[in-house]
């Protein structure tokens, strides 16, 4: 049995401790906002927060998450009104949308550490997240916009 705290809820699961957190979220807990893109920490689609840090859940064994606080896109904000989510909507960032939850989770971890990132900070923090549709400019702008919202 592994005990997990995800989005402030506790789950007790009987899974192989080596299972990546990604597949526990998706297959066992129906938290499918966390996406599979590569399975090897190359694309960022699976980004979640582990004790506030952005991690790639595809290479994070579920046992590593035991006893820590996991936050997924579903728990980023109770009302789905995190400044980043609002900024994303304001700038209509998404195309296909598949990468965007991972992008938002990476961006949220960045803003927590750096409430006013420069372009350079953003580029560095977001370089692990691929957007195949090429929405990068809007993502960059949306992060700035969310940072400004946070200031107000």
């Amino acid at each position, binding site marked *: 049995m592994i005990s997990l705290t995800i989005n402030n809820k506790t789950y007790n699961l009987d899974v192989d401790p080596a299972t990546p957190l990604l597949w526990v979220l998706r297959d066992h807990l129906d938290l499918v906002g966390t996406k599979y893109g590569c399975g090897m920490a190359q694309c960022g689609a699976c980004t979640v927060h582990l004790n506030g840090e952005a991690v790639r859940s595809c290479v994070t064994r579920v046992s590593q998450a035991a006893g820590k606080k996991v936050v997924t896109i579903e728990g980023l904000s109770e009302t789905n009104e995190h400044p980043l989510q609002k900024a994303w909507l304001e700038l209509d960032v998404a195309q296909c949308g598949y990468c965007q939850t991972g992008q938002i989770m990476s961006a949220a971890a960045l803003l927590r550490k750096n409430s006013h990132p420069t372009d350079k900070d953003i580029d560095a923090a*977001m370089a692990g997240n691929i957007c195949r549709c090429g929405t990068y400019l809007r993502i960059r702008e949306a992060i700035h916009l969310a940072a400004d919202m946070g200031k107000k």
Partner: protein
Amino acid sequence: MSQPNNSVNRRTFLKSSALAGGGLLLSFTFLSAFKKGELSADLEAEDQWYEITGYIKITPDNKIKILNPNPEFGQNVMTSLPMIVAEELEVDWTKIIVEMGPHDNVKLGPQFTGGSNSVRMYWKPLREAGAAARQMLLLGAAQTWNLPVEELTAKAGMIYHEKSGKSGTYGEFASRAATIPIPKGVKLKEAKNFKLVRNSQKNVEGQKIVSGKPLFGIDYKQEGMLIAMIEHPPAFGMKLKSFDATEALKMPGITDVFRQTLYEPGMEQGGFDTRTFNELLVVVGKTTWEVMNARKKLKVSWEPAGETKDIINGRTGKKEVVVPGKLETTSEQRKLMQEYANRPAQQLRKDGDPETAFKNAAQIIERTYNAPFLAHNCMEPMNFFAHVTADKALLVGPLQAPAWTEPLLSKVLGLPADKIEIQMTRMGGGFGRRAYGHYLAEAALISKKVKAPVKLIYTREDDMTYGIYRPMYTATYRAALDANKNLIGFHVKGGGIPEHAIHANRFPAGAVDNYLAEAWEIPSNITIGAFRAPRSNFNAAAEQSFLDELAEAMGKDPIDFRLELLKRAKENPVGKNNEYDADRYAGVLQLVKEKSGWNKEENKKYSRGVAAYFCHNSYAAHVIDFINKDGKPTVERVFSAVDCGIVVNPDAASNMVEGAVIDGIGNALYGALTHKEGAAEQNNFHRYKMIRMNETPRQIDVHFVQNDIDPTGLGEPPFPPVFGAVANALYRATGKRYYDQPYGPQLNSAKRAF
């Protein structure tokens, strides 16, 4: 299920009557399987939906729903197509419920995403549907109120009779309207009266996307569903010989390992039934991770497939295609292409007397361009849900062309088409890849075999190494100049594995007196498919780089040179069948010249490259500015000009152009799928470099030519010319011309030449 009580008989009756004209359709079974999540939130069991044309449903309390007919893969049709309906319907957009339509080609048209066709092909039918529905509602009100319909007006979901001050909601007349036959030829709005179209509206699924709702095929789930994966051969040209699953079957969660033939020998394939491997080794289990793990325990022997034959009945008719058995290696493919390039080829077009022009030329410029296979790399890997029973099949997932895949499913399952239901989810990208429905057939056969609902998932590695790539291309361009540096002859000879890219009737055909286009092809077992602007995505790189070099040799500005050629093509066109409109082509060049400040002193600090291209009925031009950062040319800004006729949803359209620019820069600099002994050398993103945020420009300015031409398509046209503009800008940055894609690896040692 959201069927109201006692609806079965009525529904059957009404469904058939609906074919004769507007009808009442009570239930909406599509998506009923989405038990969790928001997709079912709109479906309230008690709602009575009256169908007013196939695209519109209205309840008595004036809930108005518009069905998006076409699959959504990021081109934003879920928003733009319903906007077109809503414009003519006269409704308050903010109150509209938009829903993905079921697969129903009778009611909802061709339902095909690709070829930059969604808005183009639905523009008229959706306007007509909206206008017809509005008229039906007006007639319904006229009947109810016993007033002449001419005295009524419709506005924002309401009907008014000004004289008497009467008014009512659409919903009040929906039941009556639904019984009125769909009128034909209702007058459509003039473009100048558009209120919604041409005004940016937000993505109707934006909220669901940013909150991680289960929108995609890979998110789909049903009670008792199993996960399936296919262990593909390690190389093109190989096939399954035998396997030992003893260890794999001992792994937790694994329910089945078996061999499955995909297409029976001799099966006639449609043009989009392309598949790479026919003998499937299938692993089925309870969860994704368990199946992934069990695959590692398989003991498999593979063998060369040898030469095989396919019967293809595609666009060009029925033919037998011989698939060679050789295990191919990229360096050998290149050599072979050089050999073919020197042989006589098929003539595609000839104007004037090119042989004499080249014989008499004072100067001949000849350049050869090459490009590798490209993988689509949709962010959401291929996957599909299938539940096949003895007498019917349900398939749910991401695909671009349900109507093309249904006949294939019918064939492999032995079920009539009306027993096959395909539901389309949002796609995590498509780019042409999901027009090929082999993965639905795979999922369906697996479900049939294991007698359970199954979701087939490709891992990234499965997805990237499977094939259906953009072909490998080459082309040699030659120009003949006379002593005064006038262009007197133009020759292009192109080839590819297994298809060439040459569009013989495109610019500069029509602008040069003596013109020759030729092509050749080399068969291969590496499968290919449509990739965002097929063929054009190579031509625009090669031809637009060549024109840049030509302009320089002629001492001309690259934009002015193109404009001169276009002037010639317009005023005194050479030959027949020129596919492009010279005015619209020149229009995007002029616009990008102006918007980029092409000749302005302050822009001299940039290494600027320009390119323009016509494809899929639309026109696009880009100026791309590079700067030198840390000794390396780095893309800084992009100016884009596009003529795609009326732009339905401008901000979303800009987003798509921005995406095409990024996609183009990424593929021009990094995209490559190479092979060794038949095996793909890139199997995940650590080997296949994708453009990332830190490599993108700071700014992309998108400008649309303003005109009232019916929409001509946008998804593909801005993509191809990016390659040419990148190559031309890199030349200005490094003093070196770039002939081989991808350009990126050649830059590391590049020094700024001037």
